[in-house]
């Protein structure tokens, strides 16, 4: 189950979307999408639960994140670092 979306026909600058439960496998997909185009923002408002590995990718690559995180745990405890 992959929950990282980025439409290939999307306009430049269209955000990468994290949706629903983002399992460990999403970490690699997310990382390569961000590395391909480092300026692409990440929209995490619809993510309901994020695996540590996915969070680690965001922590490391520091993309621009859009909106409050849909995962209440991340939103409550980890936002300050995620948005830094």
């Amino acid at each position, binding site marked *: 189950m992959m929950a990282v979306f980025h439409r290939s026909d999307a306009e430049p600058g269209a955000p990468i979307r994290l949706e629903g439960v983002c399992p460990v496998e999403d970490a690699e997909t*997310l990382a390569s999408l961000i590395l391909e185009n480092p300026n692409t923002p990440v929209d995490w408002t619809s993510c309901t639960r994020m695996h*540590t590995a996915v969070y680690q990718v965001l922590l490391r690559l520091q993309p621009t994140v859009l909106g409050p995180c849909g995962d209440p745990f991340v939103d409550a405890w980890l936002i300050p670092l995620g948005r830094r």
Partner: protein
Amino acid sequence: MNELLEQFLIETRELVQSATEDLLALEAAPGDAEAVNRVFRAFHTLKGSVGLFDYPSWFALLHAAEDGLSAARAGTLSVDANLIDVSLETLDATARWAEAIETTKRLPDATAAEANALAARYRSLLTSGPKAQLANVAALPGWAANLIDASAECGGMALTAVRYRPREDCFFAGDDPLGLVRKVPGLLAVFVIPAAPWPPGAEFDAYACNLDITLLTGAPREEVEAVFRLVGDQVTAVEVPRDRPTASARAAVTPSLDAVVAAILAEQVGVLAAAGGSDADAGRLEACARAAANALLSAGHDGDAESCKRALEHGSDALREAIESILFGGPTKPSLPEAGEPPVPSEPFGADVTRTLRVDATRVDALLALAGELVVARNALGHLATRAEAGESAATLARAIRDADANLGRLSATLHRNVVSLRLTRLSKVFRRFVRPVREAARTLGKDVVLDFDGEDTEADRSIVENLFEPLLHVVRNALDHGLEDEETRRQCGKPQAGHIRIEAGQDGDSIVVTVSDDGRGIDPAFIRRRAVERGLRSTEAAAAMDDDAVTDLIFAPGFSTAEAVGALSGRGVGMDAVRAAAERLGGRVSVESRIGLGTVVRLNLPRTVSLIRVMVVGAGGESYGVAMDAIVEVVRKPRTSIHAVVGGNAAVLRRRTVPVVRLADLLGHGDSFTAAQDALLLIVQAAGETVALEVDRFEERIDAVVRPPSGLVGFMPGVAGTTPLGDGRVLLVLDPATMLASAPTVDEQPGEGR
């Protein structure tokens, strides 16, 4: 024995060994946090493996030990002699129980009682009163202090601080570290930072976890630990005491003061406040000032320490103000977790536990290649048989057969050498076992000893390595007990207070050399001479005639013990002769070199492998015996007329020296099997420093043989070096002429060299 249990026993031994080493290292350097970690992990793993079986009391003990070490790791329990002692005893017990299970399949009856007693000692360490509580405050690790500082609003509550450093490969194990954090009750703060600087972009590995998670919760420690129980080895939980310095106070602490100094200062403020400002208790006042000043001095704040001492003269309130101003005086700087400890590279998990690596793969490859060649060589024999059937001449066939034999011989010798190399074991295995007994012996004797090793990588056959420990331990104990002087004497001699014992190994051709050297008093030849005469080992004249080296060598003589008093350690009636016997049993020899006042070196030369040896087969009476070619200096055929009867036996002149001639048949008790052959066949051998001619009845053949060490009934026969099977199925006794001559009563009466 089932495989799981077998693996468990192997692993247990390794863990006990490595944890013992780490504990001893800790004893020498109590501040080594990494060593505490390793010990904790070893106990954690031990507990886990014991838990796989049904040994409840053992499991409970390891659990208690783990609790104790966990507290030590968190800094709430000091790593002192008590903790190290009880941990070493626990490891001892663990090793014993593992052994009992291996041999008897069950734990000894007294296990439960012993386990309970040890577990109780761990518990009492953990609950040792208010003093430990005070230490808690001062010893709060830096990361926990930072965590508290960063979460200002929770002052006054009892908290638990947790640091969780997931293993790098934890994602592959199915862990979701933040998933666990989600389950922590009463969460107050969470910080996630990279555990180590991120590797450069090109090496991006999304599945390598590199996180350092710290969190603070209002839940009690046990509840928090329950959440992390499956990753206990990666988690440190600390209780934050209720009466800790308030968050605001801490946040204002001069940044250059470290957390421990700050905690000590805060403690003094607390004590002074409790005293209510009265100057009545001058002792307490002075103690506070001294504690604060010492803490500041230790951190290099000499000026501040000075002002504390000055303030003491102005009474309690002045002192309190002075300390407070130092505590909160500097420029404030909120400390966030990332400003805390420098990131430590994630620990190399698993790297310190040596899994049993049996055989080097390249050695197996070499064997495979040899086996292939052997098949080819065997095909040549089939070809030869065809040629024989075709009626080829015996002469050419014989030559071809010899060639094939030589080829097979070469291959089988190489194959043997390679197989032998599979059994090579490092000496480090033996060396590491010395640390513990030496420590204990040094303690018993009240001596200070530095033990070091060199050449642990030297390899030798397993049977050699496994049998090396006992004799070597004896030598080391002798060095400790008799070699090293007591501290007072050493000081007078201008030597360092701690004695030095060094165990060294190295390869020397086909043998290994293991030396034990000490920097003690050395062996006094005059003393040995006197003692040898007293013990009746040598006559006064004989002793006087011997040179110093030969005299020193007498320490290996049976019945010689140099201890004036029976020492606690080595003077148990077993002298160095046991060492010589053991070395010879292993096919080696032992020698000693000593200089008075400077020290002693005992050197063991041992074979590296159990190798193929050339054996000469000789006849004595109606029997055949083997003698190792190494033991034969030369083989001589002499006319019987040149052998003369002298007092007590026969002698012959050989290269202008007179040598005693002993008939092998007589030595072996074949009695009067007199041969009337014209020529006498003599094997010239060295025995106890003398050249002796051993007369045999026949020379039969020379063979390559794997000589098996004597065992069973043959093992008790003096002079038998081993046995080897012959091509025709008989078993050949291989003799060791030197020990045979030494133990033969008649030889002493034989005329000696030059007489």
